[in-house]
Structure formats: structure tokens, C-alpha cells
């Protein structure tokens, strides 16, 4: 894989001497305000969350607020609605990530060729990613999924298909919105990967008589490995947190069929005002996301390694 090994020139710095401790800190100084800001804005709320997760705290009961030990965690883990939310989150995330990655890869392969109006097509394809999530969700709810006025039913009516999408297939409806929204993101990452391929290698392969599919499978796909990993990781992290689409389109329903973890936490925090349990659920989600993300990354990584 010569294409992706770092060229030697990049290592040749202006000086070969290791900077001293003091020099390193001088270099870092301009970054410190930003670093402190990030720590203040992300870590302090998190510490508060951890603190509240051990408190019996309900805003609506002024007498609550005592130390609760791990009982909040016990209640959250024992709550069938929480487990249901976990299952829904997994389905939503896996569905949306896999679909948008597949679509993104397909579109990126198309966009990687030169054709008339490529710039316009690329811009149009990116647009869904630029629409505000709430606006996109509302648009899908009213103009795509509406059982009477919806475009989806109108487009499918010649084939005899017509459904009340949001109620008959709530999770699928959300997955479709998320896929629509995240495909451009995946496409951009894949496109970056495709365009960083060395043309010489591809040309050599063709000269050697490899067919396009063989070129894609043997050269392009292994090359894209890191990009796929990155796209999977980022996509998963963002899509796990989906809230807008659920809040706007299904409100977690019908029943609990489309309640995911962020929406569950929202209900705990702002309907029940049970800060303790909501915080505990939040901490569990962070811990689980970390574990799953690391584990999944390793698995995906080793799969690809075997492949190439």
C-alpha cells in the first residue's frame, strides 16, 4: 500500500533537536484558553451529571435531594422502558449508519468520475446535510410521510403501495430520515478517500488487465478502510444522539416503539423532572457508548485487516 505510507519528506523538519519541556509549553500556551474553555464546557457539566446520578433529586418535590447511592442506576437498568430504548437506539443507529454508508459509498464512486455538471450535482447531494435537523424532520413529517398529502404515498401509489408510514413503520421512517440526512456526510468522507488514491496504481492495475470491479475490490476498497472506519465511528456517535427527528416526527411513539435513549432521557429530565434518574441514564449511555465504540472499532478494524 504505497499510496498511503507517509512520504519521507514529511518527517524532515527544520530542526532535528527535541524541544525542551519549557519550549513545549511555550508552544502550547496559545492553545490553553481554548483547552480550558472546552474542559469547562464539557467536563464540568459531566461531573455535575455524575454527581446528580447519585442523588435522589426530583425538581417537583422540594424535599428531595438526599444521597441515593446507586439506587438510580438500579432503577434505570431495571426499567423495561429503558431497555426498550436501548434496543431501539441500536436498531436506529445500525440501520441508519449502514444504509447511509452504503449509499454514500455508491454516490461517492459516481462523483469520483468527471462528468458535465459534477460541481452542481455534488452541491445538490450535500444539501440534505446542511438543512437544520428540526426543519428536515418537520418537512419529512408533513410533506413526505403524511398519509393523505405525503409525496411518498403519491410516488408509490402507481405500484399500489400506500401506508401511514409514521404509524405503521415508525422506526423505518426515522431510519429513512436519518439516512437521507447522513448520506452526504458519508459520501464526503468516501469521496475524500477515493480522491486520495494514487492514479498510477489504478492505471497499473488496468494495464495489467484488471476489470473495474476487481480494481474496486482489490485496490480501492482496501484503500478506503480507514475512511470507512472513520465514517462508521463518527456516524455512530452522532446518530446515537438523534433527538430532533424523534421529537418532531413520532414523539417516541406509537407507544414506545421509537423512543431512543436521548428521547428517554429527555422524558425523564423534563417530563418526570427526575434529575437523578435522568443523570444516571446519561452516565450509563456515555459509558456504554465508549465501550461499544471501542469494541466495534477493533472488530471492524480487524475484519478489514484480514481482508487486505
Amino acid at each position: 500500500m504505497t499510496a498511503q505510507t507517509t512520504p519521507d519528506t514529511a518527517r524532515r523538519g527544520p530542526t532535528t533537536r527535541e524541544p525542551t519541556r519549557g519550549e513545549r509549553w511555550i508552544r502550547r500556551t496559545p492553545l490553553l484558553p481554548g483547552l480550558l474553555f472546552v474542559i469547562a464546557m464539557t467536563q464540568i457539566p459531566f461531573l455535575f451529571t455524575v454527581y446528580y446520578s447519585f442523588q435522589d433529586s426530583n425538581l417537583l418535590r422540594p424535599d428531595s435531594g438526599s444521597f441515593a447511592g446507586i439506587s438510580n442506576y438500579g432503577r434505570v437498568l431495571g426499567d423495561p422502558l429503558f431497555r426498550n430504548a436501548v434496543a431501539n437506539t441500536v436498531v436506529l443507529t445500525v440501520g441508519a449508519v449502514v444504509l447511509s454508508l452504503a449509499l454514500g459509498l455508491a454516490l461517492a464512486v459516481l462523483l469520483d468520475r468527471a462528468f458535465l455538471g459534477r460541481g452542481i450535482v455534488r452541491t445538490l447531494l450535500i444539501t440534505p446535510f446542511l438543512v437544520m435537523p428540526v426543519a428536515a424532520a418537520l418537512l419529512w413529517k408533513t410533506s413526505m410521510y403524511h398519509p393523505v398529502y405525503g409525496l411518498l404515498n403519491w410516488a408509490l401509489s402507481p405500484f399500489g403501495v400506500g401506508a401511514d408510514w409514521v404509524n405503521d413503520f415508525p422506526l423505518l421512517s426515522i431510519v429513512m430520515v436519518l439516512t437521507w440526512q447522513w448520506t452526504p456526510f458519508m459520501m464526503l468522507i468516501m469521496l475524500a478517500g477515493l480522491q486520495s488514491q494514487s492514479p498510477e496504481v489504478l492505471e497499473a492495475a488496468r494495464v495489467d488487465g484488471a476489470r473495474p470491479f476487481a480494481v474496486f475490490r482489490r485496490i480501492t476498497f482496501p484503500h478506503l478502510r480507514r475512511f470507512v472506519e472513520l465514517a462508521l465511528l463518527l456516524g455512530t456517535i452522532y446518530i446515537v444522539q438523534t433527538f430532533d427527528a424523534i421529537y418532531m416526527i413520532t414523539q417516541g411513539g406509537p407507544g414506545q416503539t421509537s423512543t431512543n435513549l436521548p428521547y428517554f432521557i429527555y422524558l425523564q429530565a423534563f417530563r418526570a423532572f427526575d434529575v437523578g434518574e435522568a443523570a444516571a441514564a446519561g452516565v450509563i449511555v456515555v459509558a456504554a457508548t465508549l465501550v461499544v465504540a471501542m469494541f466495534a472499532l477493533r472488530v471492524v478494524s480487524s475484519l478489514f485487516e484480514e481482508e487486505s
Partner: protein
Amino acid sequence: MLIRTTRRGLPVVAAATGLALLATACAGAGGGGSDGERVVTVATVANPQMDDIQALADEFNASNPGITVEFVVLPENQLRDRVTQDIATQSGQYDVVTVGTYEVPIWAENGWIISLDEYGSDPDYDIDDIIPTVRSALSYEDQMYGAPFYGESSLLMYREDLFEEAGLEMPEAPTWEEVAGFAEELDDPDGGVSGICLRGVPGWGELLAPLNTVILTHGGQWYDEDWNAHLDSPEVEEAVRTYVDLVSEYGQPGAPNAGFTECLTTMAQGDAAMFYDSTVAAGNLEDPDSSSVVGDIGYAPAPVSRTEHAGWLWAWALSIPTTSTDPEAAWEFVSWATSREYHRLVGERLGWERVPPGARVSTYDIPEYQEAAEAFAGPTYDAIDNVDVEQPGMHPQPWTGVQYVAIPEFQDLGTRVSQEISAAIAGQQSVEEALRKSQAYAEETALSGGYRD
């Protein structure tokens, strides 16, 4: 990278804590400054009546030169979230908060808002002019804690032209059985007209509002006097089945996602023959700018079964939190916005059909208002006046209020129950199953809330 980004997995909790911190930092900011200027910060709900109040705030400033009013306008759900946090954490950001009949008794019990009886005893304010049912819904232990800005009940709105065409006649006090018959007769999916439009979207303030009036009139109840849950009783099941069957067979398409706004649009576009909802909807249906059925709508009282009346009662009221640094200035604003003079002012400056309904008896005696709201003023007033907030159903209940249980836990309990019923409307589970789960939630809430052991 991994760690930084996943932290966003808790946006809500982080935001809540952050907001609480921020709010604490701003404590006292709503109070008067040192230069003698008094500032009243008003948290209010984003709806047309509240827009009007902002448009007219200059009149208040003219008569109260020392007081500046600042408005914080939020959608209903966010208002509830923000104000609850603000008051529960005692941060004192607001001097006046807009709250509903559900919150007032709970917050009064918690000592979060002040009694307005002493201020209201001023003869100029004429506290006895407030519609009695609304006043008692906004009271706790016989003291008024919220000054009503406007009030609403529920009505059955129906298309007189479609009824006439089909040779049907709406009785003066329709029953749910009759309504079901009309819905069956008038339902015409091919013609794009549903028999009836009813809320189906989860939420204690959405689906549960109309449904609870159906439960109450069928003789059902959420809790008895000893806080035993009764959501699995035959009466509740009969009521819920009536509602669910009606909306899933003859209701609007996409019913499990339709709330007040969606139903109002459906009705205003002429796509439904009947609509059981808030009296406030009447004003919109009679407005040519937003409705294509102006003049075709008839108004009947909320359908009943075993009780004489079945309407709900809701009012948006202005309350003063105990954390307000300048309650006198806050009262100046509250009394102005809920006075007889304010109603006249709205009528004269903005138009008589925009006068806030359901707050003061005297409003209904104004000839200009009677004329402008001819179609619905009478039915609205009667609906509000007929509500019994102490015992709306057939059984005594240990709280005051109609379409909700006035305990803090109800927001959560009601949301869960409404999700189950909504799933039944969507056909994902049976009514029995939905009610079995709901009963379990209700029992659990009575225990965890400490209402019974």
C-alpha cells in the same frame, strides 16, 4: 476525539445542569437596579393572545412609567421546562410566570408562587368578576394563586352543512353514542372527509385532555380518594374503547400523530365533519384567514355519557414566584394584564374577536364582543361555567382539576399512559393491553410518589 464527542450523549442533562448554573448566576437580575428603574421579567407562552399583550405593553409603560417589562416568550413545553427549573432551583429569573391550571395548585403547595388574594382585594381589580370555575381551578386552599389571562373548555364543533346534507340533526346535548353514529354516517374517505377529528398524539396535554373527559363522563376515574388506581375498571375500558374505535375507524388519517394543531388544520380545511376540542379552536374556525369553513360550523356541548356535562377546563394564568425581588411591580403588571380595562383595550386597539376569552364574566356583557364572537361566545361561556373542577366525574377525587391529575408526577405518568393509548390507536396493541400497562404505571406512581403505601 472519541471522548470529546461522546460527551454530547447527554445533551439534555448537561443542558439542564448548565442552565441551572447559569440561572443561579443570574439570580436577582430580574429585580430592580440601583438607579430606581424597576424591571419585571415575564415568562410567557408563545400564542396569539400573548403576542397581543406584548403589542399593548406600551400602554402599560405609559401608565406605569417607573416599571419596565421584559418578555421571555417560549413555546408551551419549553416554557414549562424552563419555569419549572427556574422555580425549583430558586434562581429567581422571572417576576411573573405564565402557568396553567395544572401547575397552580401544585406550585402553591410547594410554596413556589404567592397568593394573590391580598393584592386582588383592591376593589378596582374586581376579583369577583373572574369566572368562578376558573378562579377555583386556580386556587389552592381557597386562595387564588394565579390571575387568569384566558380560559378554555371543550366543545363539539360540527359541520352544519354536512349534517343538513345527510339529513342529520345534532341534539342539544349529544352523547358519545350519538356522536359515534354521526361519525359512521358522515365518514367519507373517498371524498376526503373524516367522520370526526380527535387528538391521538401522545402527551398529557394532547391526547389525554379530550380522552379524560370521555373517561370521566363514562364514570371512570384515574384514582379514588385513597389513591387506588382505577385505569383497568370496566368504565375506563368502555370509555377508552369508544374513543379509540371512533378515531381509528372514522377519524382523520395519521391519527396517532395528530394533535390540536393538526386537527384544527384538518377541520379548517373542511376535511372532517366533527371536531371535539378546545373552545379556543372556535375562534380560528371562524377566521376567514385560516379557515375555509367559516359560517358552516355549529357548536354543541362536550358529548356526555353518564354525567350531565363533560367539558374540560384549562386557563393560562399569571403568577408571581416567591423568588421575585419586586412582587409589587409584578402585581402591577399582572393586575393590568388581567383587568377589565385590558379586555376593552384589546377590543378597541386590536379587534373585538381577539379579546382573551374565558377569564372575566363582564367580558361577555360587552356588546361589541357579543357581536364579534356571536357564533361561539355563548357556547364557550356555558362550557366553562358548567365545569365542576372539584368533582368533574361521578366519583370524588382527591385533587382539583378535570382532564389531569394535579400531582407533580402526572406529567410523566400522563405521558406514558398517552403513549400506550396512542399505540392502541395505531393498532399496535389492544385497548386492554394499553390499559393493563397504564394501570401498572398508575399504581407505581401512587407508591413512588408516596400517596399510598
